[in-house]
C-alpha cells in the first residue's frame, strides 16, 4: 500500500487511541458496575480494531491472532464472565468512591501529561525504520496509570479487576504502537495468563462474597502491621 494509506491508517489509529482514552476516562467517571464492564468491553474492542489496522497497514501478520484474541477474550469472554459474576452475586450496582469524580478526572488529566512526557522521552530515540505513533504511546502509558488509579480509588473487588485489565490494555496498546506487538507465542502466553488471572480472581470474588457477603474490599482489612 502507498504512503498515503499508511498515513491515513496512522490517522485512524490516532483517532481510535483517543477514543480508547475516552473510554478510560468514562470508566473513571462512571458509577454503574454494569456500565463499567460494558465500557471495558468497548475499550477492548477498539483495541482489537487498532491491532487489525496494524495488521492491515504494516502487514504484521502475527498481530492478526493477537487482534482476534483481544476481541474474543477481552471484548467478549471476560466481560461475559464478569457480568455472570455480578448476576450470580446480587451486589448493588452502585460503585462507591474514595475520591470524588471531578478530582479523579483532574488527577487523570495530570497523569496523561506525565504519560505524554514519558512517551516523548522514549520516542526521542525514534529511528526511521520504526514509525511509532507518539500519541498512541502516550495514550497507552496514560491507560496504565489510569488503570492503577482506578484500582486505588474504587472499593469494589470487581472494579479492581477492571482496573487491572485496563492496565493490561494499556500495555498491549503500547506494544502495538512502538513494536507492532510482541512475538506471537509471547502474546499468546500473555493472553493465557490474563485469562487465568481473571478466572482466579473471579473465584476469589465468589469466596469473598461467600465469607463476607459483600465484595467491598473495605472489609479486607483484618491483616495489618
Amino acid at each position, binding site marked *: 500500500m502507498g504512503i498515503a494509506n499508511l498515513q491515513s491508517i496512522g490517522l485512524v489509529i490516532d483517532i481510535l487511541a483517543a477514543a480508547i482514552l475516552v473510554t478510560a476516562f468514562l470508566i473513571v467517571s462512571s458509577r454503574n458496575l454494569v456500565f463499567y464492564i460494558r465500557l471495558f468491553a468497548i475499550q477492548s474492542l477498539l483495541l482489537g480494531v487498532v491491532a487489525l489496522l496494524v495488521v492491515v497497514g504494516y502487514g504484521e501478520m502475527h498481530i492478526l491472532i493477537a487482534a482476534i484474541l483481544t476481541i474474543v477474550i477481552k471484548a467478549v469472554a471476560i466481560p461475559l464472565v464478569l457480568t455472570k459474576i455480578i448476576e450470580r452475586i446480587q451486589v448493588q450496582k452502585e460503585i462507591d468512591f474514595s475520591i470524588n469524580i471531578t478530582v479523579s478526572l483532574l488527577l487523570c488529566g495530570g497523569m496523561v501529561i506525565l504519560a505524554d512526557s514519558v512517551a516523548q522521552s522514549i520516542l526521542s530515540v525514534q529511528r526511521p525504520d520504526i514509525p511509532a505513533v507518539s500519541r498512541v504511546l502516550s495514550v497507552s502509558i496514560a491507560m496504565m496509570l489510569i488503570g492503577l488509579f482506578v484500582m486505588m480509588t474504587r472499593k469494589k473487588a470487581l472494579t479492581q479487576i477492571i482496573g487491572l485489565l485496563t492496565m493490561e490494555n494499556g500495555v498491549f496498546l503500547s506494544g502495538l504502537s512502538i513494536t507492532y506487538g510482541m512475538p506471537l507465542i509471547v502474546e499468546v502466553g500473555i493472553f493465557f495468563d490474563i485469562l487465568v488471572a481473571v478466572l482466579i480472581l473471579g473465584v476469589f470474588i465468589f469466596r469473598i462474597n461467600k465469607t463476607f457477603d459483600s465484595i467491598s*474490599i473495605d472489609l479486607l482489612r483484618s491483616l495489618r502491621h
Partner: protein
Amino acid sequence: MSDWPQLRLLILIVTVTGYSLGALLPPILSAIGRSRLHSGPAFDTFARNFGFTSALVSSLAGCALSISILLAGEPLHVEIQNTLPLGGMAIHVDMLSGFFLGTISLVGGAVSVYSLGYATELLQRRNMGFFLFMYNVFLLSMVGVVIAGHAVLFLFVWEGMSLATYFLISVEHEDPASRRAAFLYVVMAHVGTALLVVMFVILYSFTGSFDFATFKGIGSRLPGVVPSVVFLCALIGFGVKAGIVPLHIWLPEAHPAAPSNVSALMSGVMIKMGIYGMARVFFDFLGPTIPSWWGLLVLILAVTSSVLGVLYALMEHDLKRLLAFHSIENIGIILMGVGAALLFVSLGHAALAGIALVAALYHVLNHATFKGLLFLGAGSVLHATHTRNIENLGGLIRTMPWTSFFFLIGAVAISGLPPLNGFISEWLTFQALLLGFHIPDLAVKIAVPLTVALLALTGALAAACFVKAFGITFLGLPRSQHAEGAHESSPTMIGAMGFLVIICLVLGVVPGPVLFVVNSLVGALLGTNAAGQVSLNGGLLFVPTSALSSVAPTLLAGLLIGLIAIPVAAGLFLGGRMQKRVAMTWACGLQRIEPQMQYTATGFSKPIRMIFSTIYRATHEIEISEESSPYFRPNISYELKTESVFLKYFYDPALTLLVASAHLLRRIQTGRIQSYLAYIFITLVLLLLFAR
C-alpha cells in the same frame, strides 16, 4: 631447641581440642542417657565429670602455652587455609595474648574444678549436656579472642563468646529477671560488636586485609580523624564488654543471673577481654602517635566507673550483685592505668606509660584471681543457703570455716590491703599516676590529682563495702533458717577456692616473677624504653623516680606475721594469767543476743548513703499495717530503693522512644489494598521523575 615451635603448636592444639571435646561429647552422652532412662543419671554424671575435666586439662595446657610464650618472647603464628571470601584465618599468640591466655587458663582451670562439685545440684534440674557445651564453648571462645590474629576470626569468637554467655545466663530462664538480664546482655553485646565491625572494616578499607599483622602501627598511616573514629569505636565496642560506666547496665543484671561458676568466669575473665581488645587496638594498632584527649577521656570513664561502681556496690544486699558492681569498680581501676598510659604515650613519655600499663595489666591478673575467688565463695554460700540476700545470712564462719576464710582473703585482696595482690597493683597505679607530676601539661596536672584522689576514695569505700559484705554474711548470728542450715561445700569447691587463695598470696607476696614478665611484655608493646620500668631486685619492688619510692612486699608480709610474735611474747611475760573465759560480755547489758539485734547491712551502709545522698537519690517507703493497735505493729515493711541514673535518664527513654516510633511507623501497613497500590503508584511516578 629446634622443635620448640612444634611443641608449642602441639600445646595449642591440645588446648583447643580439649575444650572442643569437653563441649561436644557431653551433649551426646546426656542424649544417650536420656534415651535410656534407668542409666540416665549415671550418664549425666559422667558427662559432667568429663566435660569439666577436659576443660581443666585444656586450661592447664593453656597455662603451659602462655608460660612458654611469655618466657620465649617470640610469638607463635599459625595460618589456617580456608575458602572464606575475606581471606584466611590466622592465629597469632604474642606476649600480650599470652598474658591474657594465662589469666583465662588460671581462672578457667580453678572454676572447672569448682564446677565439678558445684554443678551437682544443677545436674538434677538442667540439661547437663547443653550446659557443658556452652561452658566449654565459652572458655574456648575466650581463648580464641586472645589468640586470634585475624579480624574475621576475632569477630567470630567474640560473638561466639557473647552467644555462649547468653545461653549460660539464661540457664535459670524460668526467672523473668534472668531472661531480662540475658536479653539486656545480648543486645548490648551485639551493639558493641557492631561498633567493632565498623572499626575493623575501617582498618580493612585502608589495608585491604583483615590480618592483624597489617594493622600493626597503622595509626600513623591513617588520615585525619580516622584514628580517633577507630579509637572511639574500640572504646565503646570493647567498653560494653568491659562494663565501663555508662555501658555497664547489663553487668549487675547478668552476673547474678548466671550460675556462680559462670559469673566467676564472666566477672573474672570475660570482662577483661574488653581490656585486652583496648590494649590491642590502642597500643598495638593505633600506635605511639595519638592525641592526648584519648587518655583524658579514658581517665574520666575510668574514674566514673570506679567511684560509681563501688558506691552502688555499697547499697547492694544481694551478694552477687554487690560483687558485680565491684567488677565495674575494678575495671575502672584497670582503665586508670590504661588511660594514664595513653596520656603518657601521647605526650611522649614511654617510660611512664610503661609503668602505668604494667599496673593495669597486673591488676587485670589480680582482679581475675580474687574476683573469681569471691564469686566462687558467693557461689558456695548460695549453694549452702539458697539465698543471695545477705540480710538473711550471718554466722557462716562457724558452719563454713573454709569458705569464710577464703572469702576473707578475697575481701582483703580486693580492698587493696597489704600483703595481698590487690595492694601491689593499686600501689603501682598510684605511683604511675603520681609520676604524671613530672609532665608539664595543664590537662595532666588537673586530671592526675583528681584521679589519684578518686582512686584513694575508691579504695577506702571498697574496704568499707567488704567489711559489710564479709561481716554481715559470715559473722555474728544467723539471721534466717537459710543461714542456720548452712553446710561446708564439697572438697573440689574448697580446693578450687584454696588454689585461687594461694595465687592471690603469691601474687601479693612475691610479685617479682610475674611483674618481670609483664614488664617485658609492655616493652614489646610500647617500645624498648618502656621496658623494665618497674624494676625488681631481691623482693624489692620500685619505680624509678627522681628519688626512689619502693615497697618490699615479701619483707612486709614477713614482718606482719613475724612481729605477731612480739605481742604474743608480751602477753606471755607482761601478763601473768593467760587463761581465757568464754562468757557473756557486756553486749549492751542484755541477757542474750538475738539475731534481730544485730546491725543490718542497710544500717551499716546508712552513713555512706547519707554522705553521698546526692548520687544515690535514695527513696524509701514505710508501710505500716494499720489494722492492729498503734502500740503493736506486727508487720512494718520498709523498702529502700536507689535508682540507676543511667537507666532512668538514658536507656529507658531511648527504648521508649524507639518502640513508640516503631508503633508510629507501623501505621504504613494499613491493611487497605488501595493504599498499597498507592505506594506502588507513587514509587513508579517518583522513579519516572527521577529518571528524566
